[in-house]
């Protein structure tokens, strides 16, 4: 299958690969997918005091399109509020990377990863706030 130039670029030079320090309270982690399906994405967001995402990291097991989709969203979420990040749609990802129909599931997974990371962060916060209260 021929990949688009953008997929190849993200695949060969993936942005923001890695993981944040374990136990960092300002980090939300989303892990979606399953090895049985051939792709697993782990997306982490680091949220600043102003409520904006200041940094992101990813690791992905999956095809080139899955790696490119997750690399792309680490760039896109930076600077956004949690609510803004959660509005990123898979169709935008698929369009940006010119994904063919058989690879649309990669963009859906990337969208799910953002939502999961945001939800994880919010859950951590609410636990924190309860502790404080």
């Amino acid at each position, binding site marked *: *299958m021929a*990949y688009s130039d953008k997929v190849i670029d993200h*695949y060969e030079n*993936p942005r923001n*690969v890695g*993981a944040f320090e374990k136990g960092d309270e300002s980090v939300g982690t989303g*892990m*979606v*997918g*399953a*090895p*049985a*399906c*051939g*792709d*697993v*994405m*782990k997306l982490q967001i680091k949220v600043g005091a102003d409520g904006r995402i200041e940094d992101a990291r990813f*690791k*992905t*097991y*999956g*095809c*080139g399109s*899955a*790696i490119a989709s997750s690399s792309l969203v680490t760039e896109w979420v930076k600077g956004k509020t949690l609510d803004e990040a959660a509005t990123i749609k898979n169709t935008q990802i698929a369009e940006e990377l010119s994904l063919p129909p*058989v690879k649309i*599931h990669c963009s*859906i*997974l990337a969208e*799910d990863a953002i939502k999961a990371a945001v939800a994880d962060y919010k859950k951590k916060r609410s636990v924190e706030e309860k502790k404080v209260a």
Partner: protein
Amino acid sequence: MRLPIYLDYSATTPVDPRVAEKMIPYLTEFFGNAASRSHAFGWKAEAAVEEARAHVAALIGADPKEIVWTSGATEGNNLALKGAANFYKTKGRHIVTQKTEHKAVLDTVRELERQGFEATYLDVEPNGIVSLEKLKAAIRPDTILVSIMMVNNEIGVIQPVWEIGELCREKGIVFHVDAVQGAGRVEIDMAKLKADLLTITAHKIYGPKGIGALYVRRKPRVRIEAQIHGGGHERGFRSGTLATHQIVGFGEAARLARAEMATENERVRALRDRLWKSIEDMEEVYVNGDLERRIPHNLNVSFNFVEGESLIMAVKDIAVSSGSACTSASLEPSYVLRALGRNDELAHSSIRITLGRFTTEEEVDYAAQLIRRKVEKLRELSPLWEMYKDGIDLNSVQWAAH
């Protein structure tokens, strides 16, 4: 060294220049129809076709009269299975095959099921080889046909077709062997291999695409129903004007394969072993299928925690294929690896490397280093690798299937 390096010889092989040279005059100069009996053009073509038939027959130790030209292996398998099933359907309606056959066999048997036949698809053992005992147990009084491949296309293991031949002969069951990956790599002598029907094709032995042959045994005689009707060519087994240049190419390819197989196998085995030795010390690397009972050309390896399609993309300087069919419309991992009992991760993480006549030591060394480097890079990217390194049992994780 030219890039990309071709390491997908089980998909197809280049036409040997000696074969191409032999074919060319039959396109321009000796273009006659082999069925034309009234002039020298036809006689010349017919003589060339019969010479090629003798070479192909010699490659498998058969009588030239037992060779029927086809358009390739898919047609050969269709003709063998549909032809035999339909001829013997009044004797019984049961067919036995195995789950790791090529689609050309599996889909043909499925079609026969739709026509009212019954089929048993045998599991293979974890090493990829079918159990004789299980096969014996699957045979019923109404079994008319058994079809087992000689060499598996994905993992290269050699099935015990010689023993199965004895068994089928004893029970009077027609035995078909898809020997597409075996011809030119495994010694075949139809005097010793008791198969009634055997499929081979030219493009896996450095001949052209679009030409194959079905061996149809004469002693004891096996009967099949023709699937393509017309001018009664090939003694009525397969009508259609013979593609003289293709047949000449197949004949020359078979002649060369027979003459060079022994030395070539040794050379290729040394290269394959060299390749395996230079990657086997990596962590979490598994060979799929029996390493001993396999053709020397094949190495099918799973790199755990790395997804196959992304690995193939990463090693684009070498042309290999993925056990995972992610590249096609289906997102299923290889059904062959699943049949070995490999878990999904390992089935998704495999690549098939197949070597051949023109593979060099330099190419193998380059491939090994490239694979090592890229697997390492992709593992750095892999959350599964990270979890494995952290000592997390991936089977204990609740995954959300999608």
